[in-house]
């Protein structure tokens, strides 16, 4: 196999490192951001930009290495795009629900009556398994 042209070398390296860096920063954000709702944003970065960067890098690399365009890599981006919202929607809805029950400062139920949910009373929640908030 012939040596890799420098530009490709550079491009792939750059993309890979950039993608990894974004993922790292996003994970850092996950750790440092102050509240749950703000923390929901960084994973989207991993799913999008970081993922794309690395996919492009892989695409470029394998195109060069195998001689054919590995378009199937981009299926990953597609699937991630489909699946990430499912988790996010559930997770945010759960977080809101729990926040409201805990009496935290979040907007009230969009479709509910004026009556708010009763605040969580004592330690009677099934989700006690999960964690103490």
């Amino acid at each position, binding site marked *: 196999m012939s040596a890799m042209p420098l530009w490709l*070398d550079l491009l792939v390296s750059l993309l890979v490192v950039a993608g990894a860096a974004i993922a*790292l920063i996003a994970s850092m954000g996950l750790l440092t951001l102050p509240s749950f709702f703000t923390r929901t944003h960084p*994973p989207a970065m991993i799913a999008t930009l970081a993922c794309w960067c690395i996919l492009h890098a892989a695409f470029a690399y394998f195109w060069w290495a195998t001689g054919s365009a590995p378009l199937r890599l981009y299926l990953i981006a597609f699937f*991630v795009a489909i*699946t990430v919202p*499912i988790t996010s929607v559930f997770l945010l809805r759960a977080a809101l629900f729990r926040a409201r029950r805990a009496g935290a400062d979040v907007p009230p139920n969009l479709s509910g009556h004026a009556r708010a949910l009763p605040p969580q009373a004592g330690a009677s929640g099934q989700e006690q398994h*999960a964690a103490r908030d």
Partner: protein
Amino acid sequence: MNANILPWALPLAMGMLALAMALCLMRILRRPTAQDRILALDAMYLNAMLLVLVLCIYWGSTVYFEAALLIAVLGFAASTALAKFLLRGEVIE
């Protein structure tokens, strides 16, 4: 691997992704809420997926690609189920 920069860049990237996973783990451990943990698990899966992709490049082999695809297609199921459990108290109603 017959390139100059990649042999350095790829381990670096992998290290960074592994560290990213470690950070996710720290979030899991620090909580404060259950949803934080689920979120962090989800992020961990994504990081792992990226790690697999980088490994593919590193080894110049596409046989590992399907693993990344699998995480992309199914990885959400676990975190969704966890989230639904938090929301409804049961996974399948």
